[in-house]
């Protein structure tokens, strides 16, 4: 009976790990006794298939043609293949096992078995009363670029609808609300930037070589995505009962009575840009008194909403 494919693939891996110098196809064939087909071309094809299968699994088979070699040779460098010196202790393995339980055993168990293969076995921890739902495999297509530090190229549509091609050194990935952002240095525009992955058009191209750039040490990827901090203001609103509740939930303080049975509520640290949508959301229940600039901005936005939703009106939304 022919040797099962998985056994041949495991053994080919071992043969290429154990050799000190590159082995040519003929040497491999002699040493292993594999690829016995009388037709050399079909034997060669079978070997090429095996080699590509192993590479697709992430096994780093190198091709080398040293001086004086007639044919290329193959080997696996142990330093590329082996994971050494992780040095996890039992508590850390237990903590990671819990993390894998919380977020998905199907995707997490095998990588954990690799990093914990030589670590002590822990006592299981009791699960915390916390659940998290995160689509872990969403960012797979960016993994080679981030982990191997390869430059990527992709077509991108900005928030205002313009499209163009970006060439980026990817530093990492950020999750914010329901969106993923690839953060890195845009080679055509200086400074780190964030790119929403759902605004990338088509497949991303991952370029050679690996280790193409250095990631800055003290970079805060979250700050790149959140944007610069805008000076915040204190806002005073006059609120009916429902507005009172919504403002209290956000830390607003009652500072006395307002007109028509309302209460005056002071909310500190409001970001006029990022909190504008929140202010609009509570605006039917709470009117801004000060500052004047925030009040004017809301009035203009509300005028647009009324015009847009007038009976028989247009539905031309504005940016």
């Amino acid at each position, binding site marked *: 009976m022919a040797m099962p494919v998985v056994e041949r693939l495991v053994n080919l891996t071992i043969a290429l790990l154990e050799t000190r110098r590159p082995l040519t196809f003929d040497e491999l064939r002699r040493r292993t006794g594999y690829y016995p087909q009388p037709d050399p071309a079909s034997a060669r094809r079978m070997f090429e298939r095996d080699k590509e299968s192993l590479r697709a699994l992430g096994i780093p088979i190198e091709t080398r043609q040293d001086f004086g070699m007639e044919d290329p040779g193959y080997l696996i460098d142990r330093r590329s293949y082996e994971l050494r010196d992780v040095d996890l202790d039992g508590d850390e393995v237990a*903590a990671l096992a819990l993390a894998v339980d919380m977020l998905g055993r199907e995707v997490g168990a095998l990588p954990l078995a690799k990093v914990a293969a030589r670590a002590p076995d822990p006592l299981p921890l009791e699960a915390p009363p916390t659940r998290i739902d995160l689509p872990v495999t969403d960012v797979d297509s960016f993994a080679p670029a981030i982990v191997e530090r390869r430059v990527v190229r992709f077509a991108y549509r900005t928030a205002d609808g313009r499209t163009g091609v970006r060439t980026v050194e990817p530093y990492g990935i950020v999750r914010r609300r329901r969106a993923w952002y690839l953060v890195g240095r845009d080679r055509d525009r200086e400074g780190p930037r964030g790119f929403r992955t759902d605004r990338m058009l088509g497949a991303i191209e991952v370029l050679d070589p690996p280790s193409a750039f250095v990631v800055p040490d003290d970079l805060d990827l979250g700050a790149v995505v959140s944007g610069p901090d805008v000076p915040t203001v204190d806002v005073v609103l006059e609120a009916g009962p429902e507005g009172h509740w919504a403002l209290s939930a956000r830390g607003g303080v009652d500072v006395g009575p307002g007109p028509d049975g309302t209460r005056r509520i002071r909310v500190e640290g409001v970001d006029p840009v990022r909190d504008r949508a929140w202010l*609009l959301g509570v605006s039917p229940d709470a009117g801004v008194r000060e500052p004047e600039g925030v009040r004017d901005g809301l009035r203009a936005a509300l005028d647009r909403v009324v015009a847009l939703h007038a009976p028989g009106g247009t539905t031309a939304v504005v940016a």
Partner: protein
Amino acid sequence: MRADRPQPDVVRMLTLVPWLLERPGASLEETAAAFATDVATVRAELEHLDFCGLPGLGGGDLFDVTIMGDHVTVRMADELRYPMRPTPHEALRLLLIATAAEQVAGPDVPALASALTKLHRALGVTPGAVTLLDAEPGDDVRVARGAIAAGVRVRFSYRGRQDREPAVRTVEPWAVELSEGTWYLHGFDLGAADGRVFRLDRASGLEVTDERSTTAAPEDLRSPVYEPGPDDLEVELRLAPTAHWLIDAVRPDHVEEEADGTLRVTLRTGSPEWLARLVLMAGGGAGVVRPDALRERVRSRAQEALDRLS
């Protein structure tokens, strides 16, 4: 080939060897559990591994795999004493998993922080390369977790999607959950006499009581994600690029992009008031195409707001 026949996996086999070299006499069950597979698959892979080793004429130097009862020992396999490096996919997934768990449950599982430091170093990835915003538990999450640990009820004022006014709820807390950037509380609602899921950002004044919780959590907690119902309103919106964020707040059935970057979105909702507020929040960047009743609701909310500013 039968569909349920064990499928041996080369990478798992290459990982089983170093794992088992460190754990002589491990049981097949614990091995299968550690690799998230079943005993039959592990057994099949071990049987293959017994024919593996350094190939050569005369059979080569083969591994010695012994299965005695339910226990397995691997010897003579020094060629594979170290595991294979995680692939980039595996590395990023594992960092994502550990980072997310550390952020949501860090204080309960302190070893996660040091494990993450070691993982970043071993995998050659800069710390911070995986960043999750909005995942930091706030005070309300910490208070709820404290109540779960102590086995006591919590009380808070809550305004659900459909509620015009908030009401006080007393809840026996079961678990907190972070889903799509929002924290939820699962628990037994004494008022409704049933299990409920609450969005913690719609709760105010969450406090721990000294009343004992008496209802155990069910095996499976419901997902907090909104499922459209048959009585829901069908809505069509147009969103300018500045209002595209609104897509993240709803579950669209269909999204179509127009030439100028405007999105035409259809969705269903059981809470028109909530949706009207969302449209209001876009300040003119979002418009309701249909139904007319929702257009009127948005217009009258905006008019009420303008009256308050006059």
